């Protein structure tokens, strides 16, 4: 029987790695990859809690989170492709067009 604490610790580690990547990475697509890592860490924690409480609601929430992630990826990649067409680069440092 896997203790819930171990799974939650793995989830915390995964989230932190994703956070480091989201801050450090400078290509827009790779920032997205790291955001996916963080979403997966949250999903893992939800699955662990579902097992701890014996309640399937958390697993349903995981399903919803996965759907939102798919929608987010579709929109995000479309935005990246549009940006790339305009300035042949996806370096997020150069995307300061909305700066006041």
């Amino acid at each position, binding site marked *: 029987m896997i203790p819930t604490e171990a799974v939650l610790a793995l989830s915390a580690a995964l989230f932190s790695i994703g956070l480091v990547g989201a801050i*450090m990475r400078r290509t827009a697509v790779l920032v997205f990859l790291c955001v996916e890592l963080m979403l*997966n860490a949250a999903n893992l924690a939800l*699955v662990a809690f579902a*097992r701890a409480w014996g309640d399937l609601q958390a697993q349903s929430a995981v399903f*919803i989170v996965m759907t939102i*992630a798919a929608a987010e990826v579709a929109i995000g990649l479309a935005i990246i492709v549009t940006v790339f067409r305009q300035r042949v680069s996806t370096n997020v440092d150069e995307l300061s067009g909305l700066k006041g």
Partner: protein
Amino acid sequence: MIGLFAIFALMVLTGALVTVLASNAVHAGLGLVATLLSLAVIYVMMDAHFIAAVQVIVYAGAIMVLFLFVLMLLDATRPVKEKNPIPFVNEVAGVASSLIAGAMVFLVMQFKEPLPLEQALPQLQAGAPEAIGINLFTKFLLPFEAVSIVLLVAVVGAVALVQRPQVRDQDLPEYKNALESEKERNKEVSGTIALNRNLNTDLNRDLDALEEGTPNTTPQITPQRGLS
């Protein structure tokens, strides 16, 4: 069981580190695939069988294909070499997220099982699709419907965003060529029409002049007609 979990946890973390640190973007994407698949195995161990299947199909299947497709399409495999405009961002990121990780692990260690796992497991019904489906369509009905609208908006938005500006017929090269030759022909045709019109007006003027009985104009008309 715990040994198997340790192996797959290690694979999850290795994949995540490859995703964050690899300089080649395609390697980073493949690292994420490893993480997602190992997570699916862990979900199976945690009695979430339906979620594990969805993880493989949606994440490792659809989302990762989309990612790798865009990575290769945009040629984003080159690492960014320029100096980072934000000073010490990597150091700050490392310190901040290790602090967050420490805080979370500290919180996790306080966690007490609300009920013994042996008691909780039967209530999960092995995470079967049927049980989760009943849950989704009763307690989660509103989020479920909202998410379907979000998906629709995402699909329409993605298509609208990547749509190229409409090419008008007038801008096509073959259309331009056709237009040019059409103009040439029109010039010739309108030239003859103008000639006829000139002749007609001349004739009318001659007739008018004749009717009014002013013969002065008549001699000048004949050379004009010949010229035009």
